[in-house]
Every structure is written in structure tokens, then in C-alpha cells.
């Protein structure tokens, strides 16, 4: 069981939205983590490399902000074996590259733009995630 946290989750979601709006208003860019990460592993020859690296540094540094505000870090509990994490990771890398987006790029930025592709992609990955968790927890019974 995890605790239902509607207010904290709503506030955190609003901050995610604020960051997406800031990145668009300042740089004119979609706040898609997969796209930014994928652009980073390309050769650092483009002018886009610096802002992508800076954005990722901000993500990596964010626990310090939370520590300063709250004095403690939110829980991180991973009920999945390392091998399955590795397999899941490769699938996430392949899927977000082929599908040009993840939860942030399609699910937040794309839907906010009413992009048909993003709405279709989000419905698809939400559906396959639901099915996957159902199969793992209730069919295989892991």
C-alpha cells in the first residue's frame, strides 16, 4: 500500500506544469524528458546541448530544493527486482525513442497542445502499463 496524497500530488503536478510553461515561454521548447535526454547523448555539437544539459542538471539537483523546503526527502521504494528494472529500462528507452515521447512530452506538453499524436500515444502507454501491471501482479502473481 502507498498513502493516497491528493493535495501533495496536485501541488507537485502544478509545479511540473509550471516548469513546462517556463521552458516554453523562455526557450520555446517542449519539456519532454525523453527528448532532452536523447538529445544529450548525441554529440555535443549543437547549440541545444547546453540548455539540455542545464535542464537535466536541474532535475538531478532538485532533491536539494526539496530537502531545503521540507527538511526530508519523499520516499523512494522500488518493489521490482534489479533484473526487471533493467528490462523495463531498455523497453522504456526503445519505446520513448520510437514513439517520440514519454509521460512529460506526450502526456503533459502534447495533450496541453491538444496534439492528436500525443493524445493517442498517452492513451496507448497508459493502457499497456495498466495491462502490464495487471498481468504481473494478478495473472503471474509476482
Amino acid at each position, binding site marked *: 500500500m502507498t498513502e493516497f496524497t491528493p493535495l501533495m500530488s496536485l501541488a507537485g503536478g502544478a509545479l511540473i506544469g509550471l516548469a513546462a510553461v517556463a521552458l516554453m515561454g523562455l526557450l520555446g521548447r517542449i519539456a519532454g524528458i525523453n527528448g532532452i535526454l536523447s538529445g544529450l547523448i548525441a554529440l555535443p555539437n549543437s547549440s541545444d546541448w547546453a540548455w539540455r544539459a542545464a535542464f537535466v542538471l536541474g532535475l538531478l539537483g532538485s532533491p536539494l530544493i526539496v530537502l531545503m523546503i521540507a527538511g526530508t526527502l519523499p520516499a523512494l521504494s522500488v*518493489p521490482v527486482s534489479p533484473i526487471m528494472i533493467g528490462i523495463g529500462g531498455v523497453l522504456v528507452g526503445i519505446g520513448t525513442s520510437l514513439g517520440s515521447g514519454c509521460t512529460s512530452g506526450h502526456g503533459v506538453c502534447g495533450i496541453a497542445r491538444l496534439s492528436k499524436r500525443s493524445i493517442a500515444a498517452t492513451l496507448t502507454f497508459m493502457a499497456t502499463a495498466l495491462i502490464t501491471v495487471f498481468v504481473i501482479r494478478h495473472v503471474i502473481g509476482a
Partner: protein
Amino acid sequence: MLKTFGAFAAGLIFGTGILLSGMGNPAKVLNFFDLAGTWDPSLMFVMGGALAVTFIGYRLVFQMKRPLLAASFSLPTSTVLDARLIGGAAIFGIGWGIAGFCPGGLLPVIGYGQIEPFIMLGGILTGMIIVKAVTASGSKTAPAGKAAPRPAQG
């Protein structure tokens, strides 16, 4: 310089939102998808909060002729629902359902120092490199104009 600082600040805010919302915690993410078991609806509120702010905020931002620190808005232009988009999204969802981490949920918890986020990051980068390699070798043999670059959305 200002651009780099703006991106850094946006990253800090984004990551703070991820951590406060619970999106960085696989136990919570997987419980959101577990309708038939230990369902935790919190992530609906994350998506709701993020979408409400972005939906309104984007409309205000797009009133401007251009972004404050760049020459123009860089927006994906494709509107095609193809097998690559849907297939990719389907594979992503399976991986997300197995591991409980999505790329945005992952990076803010790297600094926790636990081993799992590093394994996940290694997996994601491996997957990305596989697609880049296959796409690159495929486009060499494809007829000219066939392998159009796709704007990355997320």
C-alpha cells in the same frame, strides 16, 4: 547564458514537482496502475495539476510572438498517427508497467544514491542507443527522402 540558466531553473522546478507529487516513487506509480489491487489514485492528481497549469500557461505563452530567450517556438509539426508512434508508446507503457519509472520520474531520484535508478538509467540509455543505431543503419539503405527526421516530443 541566460538561456542555460532558464533551463536549469525549469529543471529544478520540474524535479521538485516530480518528487513532491510521488512520480519519482515506483511503488506509488505501480499502485496507480494496479486497479485490481492496491490502487493509489494520486497520480491522477499529478496529471490533473500538470495539465491544468500547462494548458492555461501554454495559451498565455503562445500569445507572444516568440519565446523570451529564443528566436521561435520549436514545436512538433507531425500529425500522423503511424505504427511507429503507437508501437513505441505501447512498448514504453510495458516498460513503465514493469519498472515503475518513467524518464521524468527517474532523474530527480538519481541523487538518492540507491542502485535501482542507476540500473533504470542504464537501461533507458541502452534502449535509446539501440533505436538510434537501427534507425541510422536503416536510413542508409532506405530510398532518399524516406527516412524523414522525426521531431522529438518527449
